[in-house]
């Protein structure tokens, strides 16, 4: 079972290793723009509760970036299923089906953590201040897992490439902006705020910002993330098994 997970992960690692330089360079672009535009540019004229806007911003960028990278790292599975049909190799092999789900999710988590590390380094270079604890890392990993699973489920369910990019437009993009990444959810009207506060990314932003600034956090949010991760795995595993119906 562990060996099967390793096999699935190994495949993604071989591909990532070959493109490592390109991967790292391309992952620097978006965070750099956020830091320059919102940190240096807009940020100078924005006042937040404590510290600078840059300090406020960095956990939000980490949250939204890890969401995007883990989701997008797993979308090639869609092409493997629909166009290249290379998923058949895994279906025909005598492996435990969940090993495929776990292996793919772990590979997406790895990519996402690498890109998070790049952001941390850039943010420190820009002069941001935040504290990283083991819990900070755990929250980040949970966030990666959740969105990798969502990407996986989309890759199993969706028929065309066009619809796949619509997931980005309708789900990820609004979340990037609204889930406490660039501003606190307190600023939203109540009705909208209740909906937004149900979403996993809101909890991630809240937790990362709280832990990062050294203030008290509600552990219930960690449980919410864990619940999303478990649910995502259950649906992902089921949708992979249903491919052979």
């Amino acid at each position, binding site marked *: 079972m562990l*060996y*099967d997970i390793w*096999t699935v992960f*190994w*495949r993604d690692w*071989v*591909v990532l290793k070959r493109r490592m330089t390109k991967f790292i360079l391309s992952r620097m672009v978006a965070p750099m723009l956020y830091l320059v535009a919102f940190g240096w540019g807009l940020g100078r004229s924005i006042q937040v509760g404590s510290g600078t806007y840059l300090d406020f911003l960095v956990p939000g960028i980490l949250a939204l970036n890890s969401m995007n990278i883990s989701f997008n790292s797993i979308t*090639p599975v869609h092409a*493997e299923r629909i166009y*290249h*049909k*290379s998923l*058949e*190799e*895994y*279906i*025909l*092999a*005598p*492996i*435990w089906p969940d090993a495929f789900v776990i292996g793919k999710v772990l590979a997406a988590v790895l990519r996402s953590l690498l890109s998070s590390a790049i952001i941390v380094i850039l943010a420190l270079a820009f002069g941001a201040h935040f504290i990283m604890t083991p819990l900070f890392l755990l929250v980040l990993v949970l966030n990666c897992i959740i969105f990798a699973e969502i990407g996986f489920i989309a890759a199993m369910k969706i028929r065309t490439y066009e619809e796949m990019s619509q997931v980005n437009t309708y789900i990820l993009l609004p979340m990037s902006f609204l889930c406490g990444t660039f501003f606190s959810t307190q600023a939203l009207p109540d009705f909208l705020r209740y909906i937004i506060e149900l979403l996993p990314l809101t909890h991630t932003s809240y937790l990362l910002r709280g832990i990062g600034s050294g203030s008290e956090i509600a552990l219930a949010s960690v449980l919410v993330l864990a619940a999303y991760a478990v649910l995502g795995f259950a649906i992902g595993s089921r949708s992979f098994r249903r491919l*052979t*119906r």
Partner: protein
Amino acid sequence: MIQIENLVKKFPHKTKMGKNSEKTAVDNLSLSVKAGEIFGLLGPNGAGKTTTIRLLTMQTQPTSGSIQYRGLELSKHAQELKSIIGVVPQHVNFDQDLTVRENLELHARLHHMKQAERQQRIEELLSYVELAEVVNDGVRRLSGGMKRRLLIARALLHRPRILFMDEPTVALDPQVRRRIWQLIRQMARDGVTVFLTTHYIEEAESLCNRVAILNKGKLVAMDTPQNFCEKLGRYTVEWDDSDGREYEFFAEKQAAAAFAGRQEGDGSILIRPTNLEDAFIELTGRREGI
């Protein structure tokens, strides 16, 4: 080796009227294949050949019926039986981001082969299908014939006892096709049971010990290629008529010659041995697929 009983597969389908209904792709199929046999499944387009292979290789679940390999029920011993079957799909399904070696290595790892065995087996099979030169190339760079040969090498990597091949030589040069036939015969001599689908009649005729003809999901007939021809009549007379080409089959040479002699001769009359294609067309209907 393979025992199929009352196999049925239905798909959801929308009728002309737009109502939801079901389409039967495989209709009550029963057959058995002996160890070391080369068994061919023939049928016109859409007869249910690929669906049958997908059922036999656990890529889709049957609606009802049973499949057994070595007396073990497929639905109960799926993982165990997956390691004794090899599959050559109709389409090329390599991992496009990996090289030739990496594709084979992925397959070997998925079949739990140890490192030393993996390396040795990959070398062995690449030279078997004469692809050792391209081992480090990306699979996108291979020609059509090379891809087909690599598909076969990959399917054989974990030493399967049953090999399923869906249209193994579709769209290939005659030279490559002959090479692949040789490979298949060699495998059968080594004791591998080969189950293949094809719509090249001459492929079934030259390769298969037994042939089943499938039409609209139903098994129409099953026999050796020779018996099919004998049953229809060993001699065929064909000639041009006002409705197009006509055929008549005879058991005896003399009868065929006498019949040919009575036809209006305009140079189009031909007496020849009956082949599997004649049997195929007689059994699946002349106007099918037109």
